[in-house]
């Protein structure tokens, strides 16, 4: 078997499982795969001509053609698109190698698809994740600190053991000192009291010291593990392509690295270790009790499982309520997050009343859910107390009976009660463990989810280091699909070194996608992008991007000084270079008007700058790296005409002698462009200079006219 594809629809679009299998020489189709009597059809590869894929809305059709007729037709839901594409690629490759047309290129494709298949295999395996699996994987993160881990375990055992000393001493204290003292039937060594008190004090000190050490060591391990997770996740995130970031919400990614790892740290250092201690305590207690008196031990420990089960039941009941309460809380937050930033809109439309009402409803919801939880919860804590009291009652009853029959002493009974009541105290915290484990598993899963994503712009092993480029860009039959949508549908264009080309067209035409392909933020689905004759997919990405300068519609400034922001792409730049770049970008004058000049803090928490000022800083940033290829993506769209003129002057400086691709809605930005490329629906509609395009009165002429109308209106 070379490859297989599960199909999930039949020809009539009903859900039904089928399987297409590709072997070295044949293609087979099984119907009702999984049932006891699958039927199948088979074709020899040599007799086949084509295997096509056609997207039909939410489903995908596969057509198998041989000898000029349609041999088979299958449908899959669009969720299987990537699998289907991978399968078809394998089919074509196999078909080609059969007909002896195999080329070197196929070998490379092969590797890529192999990776993809692994991804699919991993995806299939997902679905339900048992909590143990991600938590076990946490252990692998702790490997470098195994010595510390060992120390932590030893300390935990020792401290739990130390807790057992006090009740043990109490037994002798009661039997050898207190009872004789009271009955006064024999001579009592009073100094024994001092000995016992000292021993008890020492036991308490030992427990304290061991607990201290244990807590600190365990907390440190937890911190090491989560710090490593945070670091690795962030590093991994930086390696992922833009397509991944487009799919994910920023807030979600931030919370995965920020709070999910925090949950895990808490789980390891508190919940898990508490549970571990409780289990140890249970075992130790059981061993001690049985060694003293098996009958009483059975009576004392017998109710434990029943009590534990009851506690677990009540807690399960509560958990749903707590989840509902936290959901209600987040609903309230989202009302706030909606209304407060949007307060201008609220006031402008005089909708304060409605927002108040919305808030009132959310607030009422919180009250109701919390009230419900409180009802159960206020019942729950006394309930546990009752259950443990009942358990103790049994010990007292059996103990009293045994003392009466002289099978045990009063001291032993006291010891038993102390052991078992300290154990029952932990019952509540033990019952919380399942919930915290599930929460931690969910957090671990969310973090590993990020770590397991493979970069879809794969790193090449023998990537070409391009060095300094002259800046020739060629799009060769480029196609790009995003999910099931074909965004670029076959574009060929050659841009000479130093040429400025403008991309115009309606929103959603694919201009930005094309630019992202040129930056290799996305990988082409078909065709190739070549720079200076190198295929971009063979080129070392980091090395290539050193040649790129990017000026975007929304310039992004990091939290830091203006000088640091200008030098972002070249941290080693001298102050002279920074100032020169700022001058060329026409930013120097306004920077000098800021209170700390080049040392002014900007970014989210820093000095407020206008859109035009931010844009000029980002132009200075691009100028400083002296890029061979310059991308201007709507660089002047978000500013007024006056500022646009300032930016334009800065840009004129920037584009000189560089290959420039400029996307603009304001056609004025493109007046220096030697060619304008009109893009519509993923295809090139027209190419030519401003005047040529106006004369041909096509799409560009229409756009131009529309813009003039808007400006004059």
């Amino acid at each position, binding site marked *: 078997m070379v490859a297989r594809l599960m199909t999930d629809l039949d020809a009539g679009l009903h859900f039904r499982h089928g399987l297409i299998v590709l072997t070295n020489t044949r293609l087979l189709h099984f119907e009702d795969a999984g049932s006891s009597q699958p039927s199948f059809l088979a074709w020899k590869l040599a007799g086949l001509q084509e295997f096509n894929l056609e997207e039909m809305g939410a489903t995908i059709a596969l057509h198998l053609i041989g000898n000029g007729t349609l041999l088979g037709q299958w449908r899959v839901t669009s969720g299987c698109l990537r699998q289907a594409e991978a399968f078809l690629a394998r089919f074509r490759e196999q078909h080609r190698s059969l007909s002896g047309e195999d080329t070197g290129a196929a070998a490379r494709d092969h590797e890529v698809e192999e990776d993809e298949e692994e991804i699919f295999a991993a995806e299939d395996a997902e679905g339900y994740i048992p909590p143990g699996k991600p938590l076990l994987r946490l252990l692998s993160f702790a490997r470098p600190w195994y010595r510390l881990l060992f120390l932590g375990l030893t300390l935990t055992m020792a401290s739990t053991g130390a807790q057992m000393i006090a009740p043990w001493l109490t037994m002798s204290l009661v039997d050898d000192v207190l009872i004789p003292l009271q009955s006064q039937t024999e001579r009592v060594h009073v100094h024994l009291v001092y000995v016992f008190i000292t021993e008890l004090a020492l036991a308490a000190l030992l427990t304290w010291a061991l607990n201290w050490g244990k807590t600190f060591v365990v907390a440190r391990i937890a911190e090491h593990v989560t710090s490593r997770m945070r670091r690795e996740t962030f590093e991994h995130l930086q390696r992922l392509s833009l397509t991944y970031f487009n799919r994910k919400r920023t807030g979600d990614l931030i919370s995965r690295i920020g709070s999910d790892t925090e949950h895990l740290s808490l789980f390891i250092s508190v919940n898990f270790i508490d549970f571990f201690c409780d289990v140890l305590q249970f075992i130790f207690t059981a061993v001690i009790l049985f060694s003293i008196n098996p009958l009483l031990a059975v009576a004392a420990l017998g109710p434990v499982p029943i009590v534990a089960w009851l506690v677990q039941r009540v807690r399960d009941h509560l958990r749903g309520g707590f989840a509902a309460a936290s959901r209600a809380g987040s609903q309230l937050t989202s009302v706030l997050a909606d209304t407060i930033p949007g307060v201008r809109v609220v006031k402008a439309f005089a909708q304060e009343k409605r927002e108040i009402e919305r808030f009132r409803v959310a607030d009422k919801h919180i009250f109701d859910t919390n009230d419900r939880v409180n009802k159960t919860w206020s019942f729950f804590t006394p309930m546990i107390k009752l259950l443990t009291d009942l358990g103790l009652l049994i010990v007292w009853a059996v103990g009293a009976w045994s003392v009466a029959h002289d099978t045990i002493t009063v001291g032993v009974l006291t010891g038993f009660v102390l052991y078992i009541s300290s154990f029952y105290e932990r019952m509540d915290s033990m019952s919380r463990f399942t919930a915290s484990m599930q929460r931690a598993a969910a957090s671990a899963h969310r973090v590993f989810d990020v770590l397991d994503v493979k970069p879809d712009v794969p790193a090449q092993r023998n990537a070409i280091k391009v060095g300094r480029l002259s800046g020739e860009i060629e799009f060769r039959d480029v196609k790009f699909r995003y999910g099931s949508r074909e965004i670029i549908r076959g574009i060929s264009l050659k841009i000479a070194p130093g040429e400025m080309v403008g991309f115009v067209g309606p929103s959603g035409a694919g201009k930005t996608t094309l630019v992202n392909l040129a930056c290799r933020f996305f990988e082409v689905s078909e065709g190739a992008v070549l720079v200076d004759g190198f295929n971009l997919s063979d080129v070392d990405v980091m090395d290539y991007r050193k040649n790129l300068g990017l000026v975007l519609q929304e310039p992004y400034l990091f939290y830091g*000084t203006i*000088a640091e922001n200008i030098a972002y792409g070249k941290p080693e730049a001298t*102050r*002279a270079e920074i*100032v020169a770049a700022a*001058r060329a970008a026409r930013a*120097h*004058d306004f920077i*000098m*008007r800021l*209170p*700390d*000049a*080049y*040392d002014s*803090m900007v970014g989210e*928490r*820093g000095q407020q700058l206008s859109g035009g000022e931010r844009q000029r800083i980002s132009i200075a940033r691009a100028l400083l790296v002296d890029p061979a290829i310059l991308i201007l993506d709507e660089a002047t769209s978000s500013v007024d005409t006056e500022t646009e003129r300032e930016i334009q002057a800065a840009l004129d400086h920037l584009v000189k002698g560089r290959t420039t691709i400029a996307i603009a809605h304001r056609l004025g930005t493109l007046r220096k462009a030697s060619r304008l490329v009109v893009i519509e629906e993923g295809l090139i509609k027209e190419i030519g200079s401003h005047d040529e395009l106006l004369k041909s009165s096509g799409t560009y002429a229409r756009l131009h006219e529309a813009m003039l109308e808007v400006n004059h209106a």
Partner: protein
Amino acid sequence: MSTPQPSCIEFAKDDLGRLVLVDQDGVRHVNVHPAKLFPLTEKDHWISIQSEGAREILCIEDPQSLPEPSRTLLLDALAMRDFVPIIQVIHRIVRLADGHVWHVTTDRGNTSFEVETDESIQALGHGRLVIVDRRNTRYLIPNVASLDRVSKRKLEHYY
């Protein structure tokens, strides 16, 4: 706007005590004032000379390379404009309803100032902190690590 050879330019003081610049083309600019490009990170280099109307006339990379008496005149003019007290000891930080009052000893004596938010405390790297008070005066802590223990404790609550 340029960075000319320092030897070609000259500073003088006129009878009204204003700073006068004669630039490399021999043009006389009266009542100019110097401004630092990097007032916090490189305060002894990169001086912009601005005209009365706050337009930059020229830029001097290293004032030390100016011949006397121009150098002294420029450095004096800078010193007159430069007011970034350096915090040496933090005595108390008192929380107010909307900010904090800092009581400190600086290289210019004891003082207290009001700081609005935590965002007014900015890290510039290498342990360097700038605190901007309500009146936009800047206070500098050149190296947090070299503060005394008590001051560091006090600072820890806010930064």
